[in-house]
């Protein structure tokens, strides 16, 4: 095989060259000998022999050719030359690589993130054999929830499944009996959301901390196919065993974070919600199973009554507590399993209460295992959002390719002379095209490597942040983000194609213009066409980046507003103490009441405390709504009229600094027997427009037996929490005297609230160390409202992509102008020669290059108005001024950057030496 001989040759290259040289030298000697024999004198014989032999160098070259693959040799040359060219123009090379890398990297990262967060499988062995189970009822909506009795009915009867598992929802539990409590405040402050103030961690008192637990069926781990790192799982115990010796599993993540990998934790007893459990095993690190976050503990479902002794939902068939997953039996398809299950749903439905919706006919729906409760195609909003993001990053790629095209065009125009020389020296057009292609391919490849590395690094950082995004007691979020190689290859191929395509245009352009007939010209017409294309691309990228940035700007202003708006109450000097009693311990109502009263007395004695009341804060969770009717009308069931209400004590308005606009306040200590309410200003204007609300009556609830209440006062509006602000219309009902146990305690202080919160913790611990007592100022609570959270996250995403767009757009403008300048060197030369000033030249180029920018800005403005309307839902308290600031501010920013990007290269045009430019003629 000559392939082998050729390969062998590659290894013995040096020896070959030596042999050949020797052989040729000997040949010449033979010839000289022969000549001498025929009577020629010494030196002349030598010379003649050598002359006859010819160019040994070329001969060596052509001899070697027999042994090598010529295309390989030439490709090597092309590569070497390509590298040299790239290094010779470091500016445009780095620009091209960065641009392409941004495009490739952003797309790879986005698709990888999509796969890690949305299209992720279950964390299980052979996850493609796992299925989610849901029921589709009459309305066509898939219901992914099942009750425990339903699960038991399905579990044993379906042969298509090789195991069915059930899990509840992650919940917050109190953890005690584990010795010294670590400061969760510190942990909180180290977590991202904690720093942003988006969550407040449950800060335990002396003996209690918060932890997260997930209730799972006992076979959860074996069906998912995961074995414990240490110890054993629930299936090693019988049901009786489990009840007699309650067991839990701990996650490696929490084991490490909380117990510093202490091996003695296995076998130790911890108290969850006050009930004792023995830790029987540690599950492997980052095991999320059917969720996306690692819980701290897994609790077997049969032990659920231990942590929630008050309700008994295990036996309640109507209680849809859980999600159900199954592993398909070998050789069974999803459709077969679904068909088998259809035969059973009617029967299980019949076991339900006949009045319940759950007894109605339903058909099962199975889909490939995913932590999302519904099939992905049922999340309209999510799909739209993903689509928008994909379009945005796709645009980034298009823009990046366009930029590289500009840079390539500019570069090849500048290289026309070089190419012309190479052609006159005998290079074929194919050879030149190949050379240019090698260069653009090389560029794309380097960019691809840079992109892969940076996408990987970026995702690592995000994931590390995500792992710490939640305080310990919420579990650990896990995302697997090895960059998706499939996507990477695809995106790399797209960008390679783009860079090669645009590398080709100038290749043909220059090889054609290299023909002697066009040696003089610069070949203008086809380039004019690509100029228009470039203008269009620049305009598009400006428009899109502008829209994204304006949207980001509006969202940022909106979230600033959410924090600084006039709330209508004193949010800075009121502390919310959300007292929680341990569920498992024996706390009777009387005991709770005593504790709260005792606590309130002691708190009131703290220096600086001016008022204490028991009520939900206006921005807290747990909004309550009720149907109502006015002035003795009969309540109607159809009526969709709801109003928000809140239980308050008589000093609520003083404590929060909410003034009464008219009427009077509640009488202290009268409890609910008064049958009087206070309503907010907005509620008054809505319910009794143009009338005096004082003395009017309304009935709360749908039953005619419920009492009617008389309006005795109108309070100033307080800021709502719901995104549409509907809860500004509010009714205040007086809290029953014994209702204080179920309400947070609000404390108004004259002194520093942070200092006071510490003092409050101390007092709670001294009253009862088993109480959990998260505290926060009302302002901190404000930053946890959905409106604020949504706009913060949306602002981050939109601004990031927008900034990326701005960066690319400015690179694009720079590239285009650079190209323009290269094209017009001759023209500029002529202009300068006939007396144009540098100012005129710069003006000329700026005018031309900013035209597409202006076009893009105008288009972007229109798009932004559209975006503004789409975003209305998540915006809070924005006015025309904010919109104007964002619009004008961002547009100006863009314009300045665009001008700068075109000014820098246009200055180069003025340095054209008229003589050099004209000599081209």
């Amino acid at each position: 095989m000559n392939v082998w001989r050729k390969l062998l040759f590659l290894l013995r290259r040096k020896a070959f060259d030596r042999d050949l040289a020797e052989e040729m030298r000997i040949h010449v000697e033979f010839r000289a000998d022969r000549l001498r024999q025929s009577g020629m004198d010494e030196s002349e014989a030598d010379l003649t022999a050598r002359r006859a032999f010819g160019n040994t160098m070329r001969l060596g070259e052509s001899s070697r050719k027999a042994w090598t693959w010529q295309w390989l040799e030439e490709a090597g040359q092309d590569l070497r030359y390509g590298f040299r060219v790239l290094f010779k123009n470091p500016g445009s090379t780095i620009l091209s690589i960065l641009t392409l890398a941004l495009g490739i990297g952003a797309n790879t990262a986005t698709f990888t993130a999509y796969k890690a967060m949305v299209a992720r499988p279950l964390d299980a062995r052979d996850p493609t054999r796992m299925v989610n189970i849901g029921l589709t009822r009459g309305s066509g909506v898939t219901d992914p929830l099942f009750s425990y009795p339903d699960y038991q009915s399905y579990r044993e009867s379906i042969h298509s499944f090789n195991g069915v598992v059930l899990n509840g929802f992650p919940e917050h539990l109190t953890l005690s009996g584990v010795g010294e409590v670590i400061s969760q405040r510190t942990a909180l402050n180290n977590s991202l959301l904690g720093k942003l103030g988006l969550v407040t961690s449950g800060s335990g008192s002396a003996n209690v901390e918060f932890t997260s637990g997930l209730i799972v069926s006992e076979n959860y781990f074996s069906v998912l196919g995961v074995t414990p790192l240490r110890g054993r799982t629930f299936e090693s115990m019988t049901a009786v065993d489990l009840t007699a010796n309650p067991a839990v599993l701990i996650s490696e993540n929490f084991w490490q974070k909380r117990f510093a990998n202490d091996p003695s934790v296995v076998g130790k007893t911890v108290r969850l919600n006050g009930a004792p459990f023995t830790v029987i095993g540690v599950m492997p690190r980052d095991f999320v199973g059917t969720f996306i976050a690692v819980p701290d503990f897994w609790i077997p479902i049969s032990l659920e009554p231990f942590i929630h002794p008050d309700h008994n939902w295990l036996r309640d068939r109507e209680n849809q507590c859980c999600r159900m997953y199954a592993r398909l039996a070998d050789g069974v398809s999803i459709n077969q399993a679904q068909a088998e299950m259809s035969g059973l749903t009617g029967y299980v439905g019949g076991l339900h209460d006949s009045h319940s919706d759950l007894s109605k006919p339903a058909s099962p729906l199975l889909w490939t295992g995913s932590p999302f409760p519904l099939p992905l195609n049922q999340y309209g909003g999510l799909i739209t959002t993903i689509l928008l993001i994909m379009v945005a990053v796709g645009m980034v790629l298009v823009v990046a390719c366009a930029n590289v095209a500009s840079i390539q065009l500019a570069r090849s125009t500048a290289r026309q002379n070089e190419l012309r020389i190479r052609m006159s020296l005998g290079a074929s057009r194919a050879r030149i095209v190949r050379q240019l292609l090698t260069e653009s391919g090389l560029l794309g490849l380097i960019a691809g490597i840079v992109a892969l590395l940076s996408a990987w690094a970026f995702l690592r950082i995000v994931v590390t942040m995500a792992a710490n995004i939640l305080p310990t007691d919420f579990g650990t979020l896990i995302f697997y983000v090895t960059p998706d190689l499939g996507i990477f290859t695809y995106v790399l191929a797209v960008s390679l194609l783009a860079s090669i395509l645009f590398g080709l245009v100038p290749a043909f352009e220059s090889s054609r213009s290299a023909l002697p007939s066009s040696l003089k010209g610069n070949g203008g017409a086809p380039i004019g066409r690509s100029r228009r294309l470039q203008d269009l691309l620049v305009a598009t990228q400006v428009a899109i980046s502008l829209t994204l940035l304006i949207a980001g700007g509006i969202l940022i202003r909106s979230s600033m507003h959410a924090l600084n708006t006039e709330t209508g109450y004193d949010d800075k000097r009121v502390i919310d103490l959300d007292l929680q009693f341990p569920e498992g311990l024996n706390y009777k109502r009387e005991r709770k009441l005593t504790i709260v009263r005792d606590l309130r007395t002691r708190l009131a004695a703290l220096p600086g405390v001016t008022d204490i009341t028991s009520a939900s804060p206006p921005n807290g969770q747990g909004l309550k709504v009720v149907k109502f009717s006015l002035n003795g009308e009969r309540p109607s069931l159809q009526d969709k009229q709801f109003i928000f209400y809140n239980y308050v004590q008589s000093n609520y308005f003083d404590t929060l600094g909410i003034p009464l606009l008219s009427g009077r306040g509640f009488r202290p200590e009268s409890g609910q027997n008064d049958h009087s309410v206070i309503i907010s200003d907005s509620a008054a204007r809505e319910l009794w427009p143009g009338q005096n609300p004082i003395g009017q009556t309304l009935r709360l609830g749908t039953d005619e037996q419920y009492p009617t209440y008389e309006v005795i006062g109108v309070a100033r509006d307080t800021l709502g929490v719901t995104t549409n602000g509907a809860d500004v219309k509010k009714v205040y009902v007086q809290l029953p005297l014994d209702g204080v146990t179920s309400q947070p305690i609000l404390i108004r202080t004259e002194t520093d609230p942070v200092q006071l919160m510490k003092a409050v913790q101390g007092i709670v611990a001294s009253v009862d160390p088993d109480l959990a007592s998260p505290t926060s100022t009302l302002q901190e609570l404000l930053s946890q409202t959905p409106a604020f959270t949504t706009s913060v996250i949306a602002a981050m995403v939109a601004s990031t992509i927008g900034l990326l767009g701005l960066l690319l757009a400015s690179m694009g403008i720079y590239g285009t102008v650079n190209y323009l300048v290269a094209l017009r060197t001759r023209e500029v030369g002529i202009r300068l020669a006939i007396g144009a000033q540098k100012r005129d030249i710069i003006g000329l180029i700026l005018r031309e290059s900013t035209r597409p920018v202006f076009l893009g800005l105008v288009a972007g403005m229109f798009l932004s108005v559209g975006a503004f309307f789409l975003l209305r839902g998540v915006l809070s308290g924005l006015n025309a001024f904010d919109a104007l600031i964002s619009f004008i501010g961002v547009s100006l920013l863009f314009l300045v950057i665009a001008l700068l990007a075109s000014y820098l290269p246009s200055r180069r045009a003025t340095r054209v030496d008229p003589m050099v430019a004209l000599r081209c003629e």
Partner: protein
Amino acid sequence: MSKRDEIPYGTLDMLILKTVALGEEMHGFEIADWIQNQSEDVLRVEEGSLYPALQRLMVNGWLTAKWGRTRENRRARYYKLTAAGKRQLQNELEQYNRVTAAIGRILQPA
């Protein structure tokens, strides 16, 4: 010097193979010299094509080369025909004969 003709394209390889086959082992100068002598100075092998041709034949595995000594005890690189080279020579000769016979028939007056 007498008038020389170019060696027809494609026949150089055959001539070299044939020459080496006759002489068992020959070095480059001998090969060129032999062809020139045998053709009575009509065919002359240019060094510029001899050495690339020798490489080509080695890549295809028809010739092998090793260093040896001439009768005058000078170093030279000797080429030898391989078994594959013999077969190749046979093929080329047959093909050549077919083609020249065909060309002859066309050119011969009927």
